[in-house]
Structure formats: structure tokens, C-alpha cells
């Protein structure tokens, strides 16, 4: 399943991701396209709360695809939150 939330700002990327994840059929993955940098942490965070792991790929300048997939085993919330925050910081362009 794919959703395109480009142009949308907080809270919609995370809200739409949550709605879509709840409707997602077993075994399917969600691909979310966004151009809102804060979504790089808010969307994976919503996913983690529902037991989803995430992967982020750059699509175009200032655009990303976040892929969310159900984890096979229960995930360690604390560890995953730290990883999400670190990754979001990493993905922001380092130099102006």
C-alpha cells in the first residue's frame, strides 16, 4: 500500500500513517511519500507504537519514502525510539 502525503505538514503525515497501518492487510507493507522533514521521526514513531519497523530512502531533494513493515518479534520500544531519533537527525542535511 502506498500513500502520498506530500505538501501535508504535522500532524497529518503521522496521522495518515497510523490510519493506513491499522487498515494494512497482513504481510503488506506501507510506503509513505513525504516532503515534511519532521515526519522522518513522527511517522516511524507512530509505526513503532503499532509494532512496525521502518526504513527511509531519499527520493528527490527534500523528499523521502518511509517504508513500514510489521516486525516479526515484539520490539523494544525504548531502543527503537532512540534509533528513530538518531536516524532523523542523521537524515537532515548536515551542511547548509
Amino acid at each position, binding site marked *: 500500500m502506498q500513500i502520498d502525503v506530500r505538501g501535508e505538514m504535522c500532524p497529518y503525515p503521522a496521522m495518515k500513517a497510523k490510519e493506513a497501518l491499522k487498515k494494512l492487510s497482513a504481510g503488506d507493507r506501507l510506503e509513505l511519500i513525504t516532503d515534511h522533514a519532521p515526519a522522518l521521526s513522527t511517522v516511524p514513531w507512530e509505526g513503532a507504537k503499532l509494532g512496525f519497523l521502518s526504513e527511509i*530512502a*531519499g527520493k528527490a531533494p527534500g523528499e523521502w519514502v518511509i517504508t513500514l513493515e510489521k516486525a516479526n518479534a515484539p520490539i523494544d520500544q525504548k531502543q527503537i525510539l532512540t534509533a528513530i531519533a538518531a536516524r532523523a537527525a542523521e537524515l537532515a542535511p548536515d551542511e547548509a
Partner: protein
Amino acid sequence: MQAGATAVTASPRLPANTFTIAGALLFIVVAAVFTGQKDFELGAFWLIGIAFGVIVQRSRLCFAGAFRDLIMSGDGRLMRAIILGLAVTTLGFGMLMARFVPDPSFNVLPPGAHIQPVGFATIVGGVMFGIGMVLAGGCVSGTLWRMGEGYVNSWVAMVGILFGLWGASKSWNWWYDNDISKREATWLPTDLGLTASVLLTLGLLAVAYVAILWWEFRSPRLPEPKAKPAPPALTVREYLRNSWNVVFGGRGWTYTAGALALGVLSIVAYNLQSPLGVTGGLALWADNAARVANAGGLPLKGADLLAGCSSAAAGAEWLTIRTTTMTGVVLGAFTASVLSGEFKVRFSRNTARYPQLLIGGAAMGYASVLAVGCTIGAFFSSIPSLAVAGWIYAAGLAAGAFIGVQVIRRLP
């Protein structure tokens, strides 16, 4: 996806266009010189507006988000940062007001301070503004800086805001006769004295800070990411590059840094003339445009006696300290987002969003006239002015944001 949170490729950063940057900087300087020659304060408030825009863009200091995230996700980071900003501003304003009004018990209000009348309109305005800012995806200042960042959604919300302001000035006389003219602009120091009022305000802010922290820790929270250490600086050039990246690097500033900087900026602005405010300028332009189009824009009854963000005192001027501040916010945010490679024209693919933005904007515009200000003028500048209205308005905003969250949860 074994690692749980992986990044496949880093997104290429947006190219910072040299011509755009040079053009924006040149315009900022020329406009400052031009307005400054007309009147020193016009130029000064233009630069204050630019600084305002740079600060809120770099720190993503979203006042609507501060209220909304507390309710939606239990995230209080923004609101706690704003509370710290309010505390600093309160100290600064306290010192300035002590100079302006040495003895507050004579029932004299400090000139320029944002002390609004406390009444039914404050509560209605707060709740309505709270609903509007959640629907519009940002308060008035948030809409201004995201306009500068290239969010088309915010331009649409601004159209709503201008219509709301125009509608409010048409019904202003009813509100003035039935409520606002009968209420008092309540200033805490009149009864308590200045020192006790500052201490009371700081105490209330401290209580609010701890309460929000408690609320926040009830659900798992996203840890603050540690900033990556800068590469070692072995030359002056490298040192300057690292310093530049602290300000305009992609990661931006923390909320706290932004809120404290905004507080200091408000103190500077008040020392010159008046604390930060943005809606007064917008209201003035909405009224002037209505006058040009022969669609109203009557002088607002009694509004020249009101402190804060009111359009009336300026008459039919287009250039005032409020309008230069407000346009400065947009251009400051534009420049900062281009310098940091974050500027991008973005528009929502979901067409159902546009009517929502217009309605939310209109509600905010209308409400900001009733309450004589927005989250900046009637909240961030009002609580440090030691006005009772700021607290009532904040409670209204929280209630409105709660209703707004219930509404957007049911929207497509």
C-alpha cells in the same frame, strides 16, 4: 529490516541558489534602509520581523503544535520550550515596565505593553482561535513562516485569515458595545505591585512546566537526538564554516533555543516601542484592502484605546511597525529556509484539505480581532506584560485545540 530503523540512502540536499540568497539579502537591506529613513522604528521592526522569521524557521517553533501535540500525542516539548521563553520575557518586560511605571498602584498602564481587556470576547476568541489554528495547521505566525518555507497550504490558510479579519472588523461594533467596552484591561501589578506580579507569573509558569512534564512522561517519548559533533576546525575558514552550520545547518535549533531567542527579541522590540505581534499588521491590511474595494473597513470603535494587536490606531497607513514585522517574518523564514536548503514549494495532494485550511484560517482571523491578538500578541507578549488576559486566552486556546483535534481526527 532487521535493525528496525534504517536509512537506505540519505536524501540529496536541496541546492541553495546563490542568486536567490543574494537577492533576498539585498532586498532585506534595501527595505531596512528605505523604511528606516521614513521612520527609524519602521526599519527596526522590519529587521525584528526578519529575525523573528529566522528564529521560528530554524527552530520550527510552532505555537499551534505546542497546544495540539500535548493533546494528540502527549508531547510537551514545544510547550515547555515556550514556557521557558515566557519566563525570560517576563523578567525582561518586568525590568522595562519598572522603568515605565515606577508606581503601578496609580492604575496607570505601561505604554506599549500588551494588556488586553478581560471578558467574554477573550474566552470566545481563545477557543475559536484554538480550533482555527489546529484546522489551519498553524497559528498566524506559524502560517507566516511556513509561507516563507514554500508551503502552499499556508498561503491558502492566509487567505482564510484575511477574510476572517475582514469579517471581524465588520462585526466589531457589536462586540465592542456589548462586551469589550465594558471590560477592564487588568494588569496584575495594579493590585499586587510589580515584583509580586513577576514572581507570581514565574511561579505559575514553573507549575505549568512541571505539570506538562508529568503529562509528557505518561507515554513513551522520543529522546532528543544528540547533535553530531562538528568536524574538527583546523583553519579559520573551517571554524567559521562550523559556526555557520550551527545556525543554518540542516538540523536546525532546539525548540528551547528558539523560544529563548524569541523572548529576547520581544524584549528588544518592547524596549523600542512594543512587544512582538503579527495580527495587528494583517488586520490593518485586510481593513485597508476592504476600504480600497469599498467593502467596509470602517474605523473600529474605541480600538485606538486598546493595547496590543489592533489595527485601528494606525488609520489608513499601509506601512506600520506591525506590517513591517509581519512581512519580515515571511521573508526571514524564506531566507533562512533557502540558506539551510529547506525551501521547497509544496502543496497538498488531498484537495479536501483546502476548504479546511480556509475555514480554520477564517476562524483564527476572526478570533484574533476579538481577543486583540494571536498566539504571539495575546499570549507570548501578554503573559510577560503581566496581563490577566494572556492566561485566560491560553486556557481558551487549550480548550479550542482540544475541540480542533477531535475535528481533524474525523476529517479525510
